[in-house]
């Protein structure tokens, strides 16, 4: 277990309480700042919104690091244990990129999806130019006979 004495360990815990509470307060403050609640002129500034978003995400990861390494004592475990638990979460980076990209493309194709959903079997398919490549030619029955 940890090499700290009882008194030292106790101090670390209460320092953790203050740290997590302060980081949470900073997060809430910046979140409200970005939405224009603190200074109303800040409302609707896109780059500010994204900067604050990044800041909030990093602060949350800092909190997560602190909880795992101090409160859950990962710091005092063998390196192999820490890596076998933490490294698999790297896979999530791929999941985030892939699914957010998917969501984004869904947004830009909403109208097309709506139209496609109204198609029925046996009907002439709705031809949409945006869906086809420029040099695509659709073979019709007359072309063959």
């Amino acid at each position, binding site marked *: *277990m940890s090499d700290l004495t*009882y008194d030292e*360990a*106790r101090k670390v*815990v*209460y320092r*953790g*309480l203050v740290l*997590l*509470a302060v980081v*949470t*307060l900073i*997060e*809430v403050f910046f*979140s*409200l700042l970005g*939405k224009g*609640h603190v200074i109303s002129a800040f409302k*609707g500034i896109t780059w500010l919104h994204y900067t604050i*978003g990044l800041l*909030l*995400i990093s602060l*949350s990861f800092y*909190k*997560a690091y602190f*909880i*795992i390494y101090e*409160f*859950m004592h990962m710091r005092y*475990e*063998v390196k*192999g*244990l820490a890596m*076998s*638990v933490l490294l*698999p*979460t790297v896979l*999530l980076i791929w*999941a*985030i990129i892939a*699914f*957010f990209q*998917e*969501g*984004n493309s*869904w*947004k830009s194709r*909403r109208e097309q999806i709506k139209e496609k959903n109204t198609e029925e079997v046996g009907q002439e398919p709705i031809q949409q130019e945006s869906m086809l490549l420029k040099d695509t030619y659709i073979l019709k029955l007359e072309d063959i006979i």
Partner: protein
Amino acid sequence: MATSDTIVEHQKEQSASDWSGGRPAFRTSYGKLMMWYFLLSDAFTFAGFLIAYGALRFSSPTWPVPDFVFSTAPFGVHHAPLIFVTIMSFLLIASSVTMVRAVQEGHLENKNGVVFWMLLTILGGAGFLSCQAWEWTNLIGTEHMSVTTNPFGTHTEGGVYLTADGKESEETFKAGESFLIHKAHEGHGGEEHGDGEHAEQDFSQGDHPGYLVDERGFVHRKFKITEGPNAGMVKTEEFGPKAFGALFFFITGFHGFHVFSGVIFLLIIMLNAGSGLYMKRQNGHEMVEKIGLYWHFVDLVWVFVFLVFYLL
């Protein structure tokens, strides 16, 4: 140079002996190791949920603004964005800290200390659950959000609301501002507009000059657009993206279920600790340590639920 070489060799020797038998893997107990792997798998479940939230949010043209949706608190507090959830976060953080204290007392084989700090942890968890129960009650009962209905909409164009008789009112709004679609003849959760005049208005189902009442009694107010290419058009308030309600109730519900089962297990382990069972085992109250890992994980997940649902 020589010193660093010896260190490397020393480590190699150690790690080889770690796996040569007669020693638990990773120099920790089987139970603790498996708790870590359970938490890893649980983290993937939550990550799946939260990533789905992100994907659906990206796919929607508009999304309810969290500081508008979550701006009420008990005892009639309104327009206090995020304040109530911040209090909920503090409760979980505090209960995490008391849990660390319980684990520390456990290492010292101090039975009474363990029970005292676990009791505080349980109180923190129960407090969090009560807050969540209030939040859900308010969202479902007062604001009529459900898994399939999301009355929190967002304006995409600037404009002005119409009065009950269809004339332009003083009430203007900009693109990106949120609104809540109320039900007729019901309390409005403190939203101030129009409370007084509603008494004399006709809220029968159908199309009225200033609003539209749908079959479920939701009053969709009408407004005139004053900006952009559609300026001059009269439109009706529409529901926000459906997915918001479903995601909110499923994800915070799943987290709340974790907190609930955590409280139950904490209770059982506190009673066992109080009975002296873990003193007999003489392993530094390892069971308290394991439930501690779980409890910190619940706090950890809340950090990210708090981030995606309330802060961003």
